[in-house]
């Protein structure tokens, strides 16, 4: 899956779980500060992403995922 495809899938997950408008999701955005995804929502986003991309995102890794780009990088590496 390309970075672009991952971004678009993540945008869909963020919309489904947290109601973030897909058009607002770009690689440079911070989950918490820009997209207002709180910590409980982030758990749900991570679970949905694990299902979608077939990867495992360990808890200790989640706190390093500050921006959407961080998540994309992790998923690309883990796939």
């Amino acid at each position: 899956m390309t970075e672009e495809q991952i971004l678009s899938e993540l945008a869909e997950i963020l919309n489904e779980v947290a109601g973030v408008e897909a058009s607002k999701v770009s690689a440079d955005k911070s989950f918490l500060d820009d997209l207002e995804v709180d910590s409980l929502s982030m758990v749900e986003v991570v679970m949905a992403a694990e299902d979608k991309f077939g990867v495992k995102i360990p808890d200790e890794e989640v706190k390093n995922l500050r921006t959407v780009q961080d998540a994309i990088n992790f998923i690309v590496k883990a796939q």
Partner: protein
Amino acid sequence: MSTRVAITGLGAITPIGANVNETWNNALAGNSGIVKLGDEWAEGLAAQIAGRVTQDPYEVLDRVQARRMDRSTQLGVIAAKEAWKDAGAPEIELERLGVHFGTGIGGLNTVIEQYEIMINRGADRVNPMTVPMIMPNSAAATVGLQFGARAGVHSPVSACATSAEAIAGGLEMIRNNKADVVIAGGTEACLNRLAVSAFAAMKALSTRNNEPEKASRPYDLARDGFVMGEGAGALILENENHAKARGAKIYGYLAGAGMSADGYHIAAPEPEGAGASRAINQALIDADLSSSDVAHINAHATSTPVGDIAEYKAMRRALGADLDQVLVTATKSLTGHLLGGAGAAESIFTILALANKQAPVTFNLENQDPKIPVNVSIKNKNQLPDNARVALNNSFGFGGHNVCLVFTN
């Protein structure tokens, strides 16, 4: 002179309507909301009938908010929002806005759903919102957040007396000057295989599966148990001075409340109605009224063989010969038993009956039980006298909880 508590807003979502207006019109017309449960999960159950809300909550709530609520909270929020809007969505100090909102069972649908996910997909797939969705105060907390209530958010739990107790709690909050406005009521949504099986195991439910509409028949000789229902009701209770100062529409007043406990059995009502009659007496004393003032009673009347008689005895003990002047109605004949939502939904019926001088119709009364000699509101015989100004709503719950609310206009 103590504070008077006005009712300035009403909201409901029930098996006979998606809002107050629809629910009320069907209650007057005697249209039943009891249906056969066609779901796969209901197959083979002893009881396969229920009063079901047909409005899809996702059509009226924000999707993202709704997916973080158990169905019981969804229905509660829908009722609260309607009541709030009906009250004119007052702009008030949030420190003076309270919530008293309960549920008898809580988020059981979510418990079951997440349990299945845990078993089938693993413990690490359990939704992080599970706890806030299943905690018994979930509906109260969510309603509180919806409107930013900060005076205090409370959630009594007393089985089928829950939302009546919540309304009594709201009354006290305003009388004690803890709040000017309280959103009070309750909700229930536990039509699932576990809850229906569990109530059926108690032999509490009607098993008239082939005639759903005829199954809930309070006071009728052929009654064989209650019919489960789901739904919610919400009242906006408001300090009368506060309501008048902002020019609010006033439906009537919550004049008093009485609460007692049977101290008898975890599920069965005390058969002589002693505990329940004390709740009725206390409510009248609290309202500074007497039995001769009462024109109408919305009875708890669940359609169980024992419960309906115990309540009759309680009413007779409390009101004596004055009971013969009262028009009694049993709305569970139409809605089924909304459990934690019942007291609130039936309070709305009571308030509207006084306001319109017309009581909801008791359905399925074909052969009235001679052990329950009361005047029952039935089709074309549901008018209240023009001077009717006091009505009671009874609610009782497993555990021996008894609540009586007094409404006036």
